[in-house]
């Protein structure tokens, strides 16, 4: 009888141990395991993302020169003195006389919010072929200069040319 009672006590203890301690412990361990699995998946995707970005960076490094050119074409600042200096040099090289160079206004572009455009104008005096060469030179510049309008008035054997143009810069 004693043995029977002892067995009953052990059964009770076993049930108590299982329900009160073992099962919650197992549940907690399973949850922890699940959380670790989930973090592992996120970790894998992070590693994948990092690898992709590193690959892109590696590829980007191959286009370093081109990207430098892009940054030169669309600088963070207007850098108008450099533009004027280049145009002035081109005007002189094409045997034209500068009447005026300047009149700058800056405004946001209509096309994209991240960019601004600098409108400027200049007047030169000289022959038609020389002016055509100047326009050709200007339009071949790396820093993109868009000619908006050209006015030409005959004065004697030469012409007075008025040019309105614009260039862009990136709004950092």
């Amino acid at each position, binding site marked *: 009888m004693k043995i029977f009672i002892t067995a009953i006590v052990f059964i009770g203890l076993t049930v108590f141990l299982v329900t009160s301690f073992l099962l919650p412990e197992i549940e907690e361990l399973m949850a*922890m395991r699940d959380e670790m699995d989930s973090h592992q998946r996120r970790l894998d995707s992070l590693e994948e993302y990092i690898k992709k970005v590193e690959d892109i960076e590696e590829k980007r490094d191959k286009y370093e020169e081109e990207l430098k050119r892009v940054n030169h074409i669309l600088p963070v600042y207007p850098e108008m003195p450099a533009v004027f200096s280049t145009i002035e040099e081109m005007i002189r090289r094409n045997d034209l006389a500068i009447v005026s160079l300047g009149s700058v206004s800056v405004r946001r572009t209509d096309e994209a919010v991240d960019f601004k455009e600098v409108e400027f104008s200049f007047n030169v005096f000289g022959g038609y072929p020389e002016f*055509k060469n100047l326009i050709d030179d200007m339009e071949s510049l790396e820093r993109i200069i868009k000619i908006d309008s050209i006015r030409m008035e005959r004065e004697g054997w030469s012409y007075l040319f008025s040019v309105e143009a614009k260039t862009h810069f990136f709004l950092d």
Partner: protein
Amino acid sequence: MAIKLKQDKKKKKVPKKTKIFSLIVFLVFFAIATIYLLSFLYRSSLEDDYNEMMEFYSQKEAEAQSLRRQVDRVAVEEDTKIRFLKDIIERRRKTTDFFSLLEELTHPRLYFNSMSLDVIEGEARIEGVAENFRVLGEQVQYLREKSAIFEGEANDLIRVIARGGEESLDQYTLEFFISEGNLEIYIMDEKTGREVLELERDNQRPKAQAIKEERMVILPLEGETEISQEFLELVSLSVSEEMSASVYFYLLEGEKIEEMNNTFLILEKNPLIEKVEVVEMRVREDEEEIDVVILEEEEETNEEEDNNNDEEEELDEEEELDEEELIKRGEVNFSLRLYLNPRMFGVSY
């Protein structure tokens, strides 16, 4: 001794099944307890792994965050710049292309003295000087060949104003409009500033517009050179959409009335012209207008000549009466109205 035996007897009485049951119960309890204890060990190990993993995860996340910022700052910026540049380059119109086109379309004996080019609107207004009407006619004819006439507007299809004096040059205004694949050329009326003729280079043209193309009245300009080479200077010519042309001549020298009559006859014989009408005749002396003779009588076409002989005779008499006086007084300006032959322009009225 008896008691001991009795106790042994009693001990032996425990059933074997009960013993086995008790043993199983104990073993189960022991196993469960062991599992529970082992779970503590497993938890400890799992927690170590978890912490290690979380630390690694944090590191990677920080790295990814930094890369993401870098991507946002550099790659997105560069991508935006490249897209913007691509857009600019695609929409860019090379101004030098326009100059090349203009040079290609310009008559060698004609020059432009002013030009206004709006690249944004793709529109250019050019004023030029032609040596004479023949050059202008050739220029317009050339434009016609290279283009297609699009639309005539207002009362005048083309208005050409001759500059008097020593230069005797003809002034007109051409307006070019370049859109995708098409070249539109407007000839402007200098007085109103409105376009009086629009030309467009486009092979895919609706028929209705092709009919309008036939209204282009270039040929009278060419015919004009035949009649004004020696004694006449064409002062102005305008052609209306209703197929009538007003021509204003200036007699330079010679037998003035005779020259005027010759001009009249030449124009009448021109198959392009259906009817010629003298609208106005001014007699000038020393550059001062002294008399105005307005002749409203009409000269009929060759086809209708027989039916209108009486009217013509009346007109001849009137001209004969004035001729002597006009020759004495000096130069004569006269204005004719030409009714163009619609059949020659492919237009049925």
